[in-house]
């Protein structure tokens, strides 16, 4: 150090800007870090605002005298817009939502998983390189397009099969279109999970004399199960929250039914009906949409949380 100080040139260099810039640089860095922290806080604020807004408006809804908590969870009738006597039982909307999601899931989950196994375990790199981008395109198609497809292609097809059974709006058509919508999500997320399984596991199973089928179904799929289940849950929660397809193709009759040929109304479709219609912004019908939104939010929240839990708890670690 002393030699540095005595050397006039080096001493000069050592002092060049150092004390001044260290201080101002620290302040600058603090300021930047603070703004990054603010951005992060924003995402927390979004969640908080969603919860507060939905809770406040839902409480407002239950303050109307024609609405009771018991009826909301106990009644099987939902007809806020028609008839002299209004009923606010959430179950018809929940049932419609679950019916659509069930049709979509029973179509898309097996198909998506099998396609994912094919892409990850059987397909040559060239086949993968053509199918993967096609799936990505399918994943990016706006949902209103699937709704249009349901209305102008699937429903007419169903009506040709059985004109008596299927009307111009039915749950099956909307459910199938929703299934097509979630298919790429199921397929590409499951494929990611399958490909994340280390190669050594496959090599070991092949060495023991397993066929490709044995290896993929008995070794790779179980090893990737947590990721596959998480993909399934994500896809189901997307189907539950899907709006435009059901608004176009499922119809508008809120009823508790498991009949896929019936017209159903989902929670999201009811919200569309309210926000598109002329319901006054302070009436009980209008406020009911917030209670429906809160129910929807809770349902998808639970699905996402279970998915997170499955990923964290049941992940098989091989490295």
């Amino acid at each position, binding site marked *: 150090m002393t030699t540095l100080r005595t050397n006039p040139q080096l001493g000069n260099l050592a002092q060049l800007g150092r004390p001044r810039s260290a201080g101002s640089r620290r302040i600058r860095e603090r300021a930047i870090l603070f703004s990054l922290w603010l951005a992060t806080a924003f995402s927390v604020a979004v969640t908080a605002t969603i919860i507060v807004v939905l809770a406040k408006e839902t409480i407002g809804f239950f303050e109307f005298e024609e609405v009771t908590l018991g009826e909301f969870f106990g009644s099987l009738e939902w007809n806020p817009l028609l008839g002299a006597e209004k009923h606010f039982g959430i179950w018809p909307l929940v049932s419609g939502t679950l019916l659509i999601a069930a049709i979509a899931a029973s179509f898309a989950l097996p198909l998506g998983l099998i396609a994912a196994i094919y892409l990850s375990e059987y397909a040559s790199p060239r086949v993968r390189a053509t199918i993967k981008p096609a799936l990505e395109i399918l994943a990016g198609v706006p949902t209103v397009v699937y709704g249009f497809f349901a209305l102008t292609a699937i429903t007419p097809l169903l009506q040709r099969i059985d004109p008596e059974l299927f009307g111009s709006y039915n749950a099956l058509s909307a459910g199938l279109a929703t299934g097509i919508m979630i*298919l790429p999500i199921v397929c590409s997320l499951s494929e990611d999970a399958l490909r994340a399984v280390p190669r050594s596991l496959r090599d070991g199973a092949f060495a023991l004399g397993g066929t490709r089928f044995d290896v993929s179904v008995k070794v790779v799929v179980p090893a990737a199960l947590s990721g596959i289940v998480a993909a399934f849950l994500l896809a189901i929660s997307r189907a539950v929250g899907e709006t435009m397809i059901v608004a176009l193709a499922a119809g508008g009759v809120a009823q508790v039914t498991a009949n896929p040929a019936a017209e159903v109304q989902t929670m999201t479709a009811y919200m569309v009906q309210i926000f598109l219609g002329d319901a006054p912004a302070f009436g009980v019908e209008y406020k009911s949409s917030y209670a429906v939104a809160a129910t929807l*939010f809770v349902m998808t929240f639970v699905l996402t949380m279970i998915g997170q839990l499955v990923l964290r708890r049941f992940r098989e670690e091989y490295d």
Partner: protein
Amino acid sequence: MSAERSIARRMLANRAFLALCLAATTAAMLILAVLLVSIFAQGWDGLSWSFMKSLPSRKAEKAGIWVALIGSLWVCAICALVALPLGVATALYLEEFARKSRLTRLIQTNIMNLAGVPSIVYGILGLTAFARMFGLFGTNRDEALTFGDPESLFFVRLPFGSSVLSGGLTLMLVILPIVIIATQEALRAVPSSLRSGALALGATPWQTAWGITLPAAVPGIMTGSILAMSRAIGESAPLLVLGGALFVSGAPDNLMSDFAILPLQIYNWASRPQESFHAIAASAIIVQLVALLLFNGIAVFIRQKLQKPLQ
């Protein structure tokens, strides 16, 4: 003998499963083909320059998508301008600066949850927070605070009402978690040796993040952001809640203008009973799909050309 039979049986199972796999994948591809063919068959004839340039109309033959197309551009531009900086900043903080504490884990879980919230719920949030601003400025449109000349580009009104600004900000809420997650993944893929090298040369943590880590992650961030934007141009439910499906006569000329967007225009036409409106809905879908392909094409191009191996 039994071993041989077992092998034969398992080989058969293998072949049967391969057939099943091929059938499933072919079915998925067939669906995509049928979807495209049915839409092109319905909408190809209606595509014309005048269809692109025409204003909305009550008659299907005269209606066009100009207003909705420009509205979509406005909304998406606002959405990108806000969501990208905000999302990248959040991801930078979480990946490069935040200590791995319980709070950080909670924030991470929260972002995962936000990604799973149905978009129509974001519409309700946008309606309350942006269009009405929680009723802070009164509930009537006449009570709104205004700044500047309503004709000028810089006109601002509080609350924002069902304007392009509200629409863009609402869409921003929808894609923000997607941008954050994609950016985080891109940052995580940057090898830590790059960071160590920069820090060892005396760079501060911020200089390292800004000058070394972030540039290395740019291809990943851009791919993720473009895919997020392709979600944004197709998203319609939240803007429907905001009131974007109403009849709008002209393209927006400032941030407070009413707006229409292409997906909602498609919804509007598809939900009418007349066949003639279904035909122009299909034509509008073709335009929408071309825009989507353009976005995806750019993303694939960036992924292939810009991604340099870092290890």
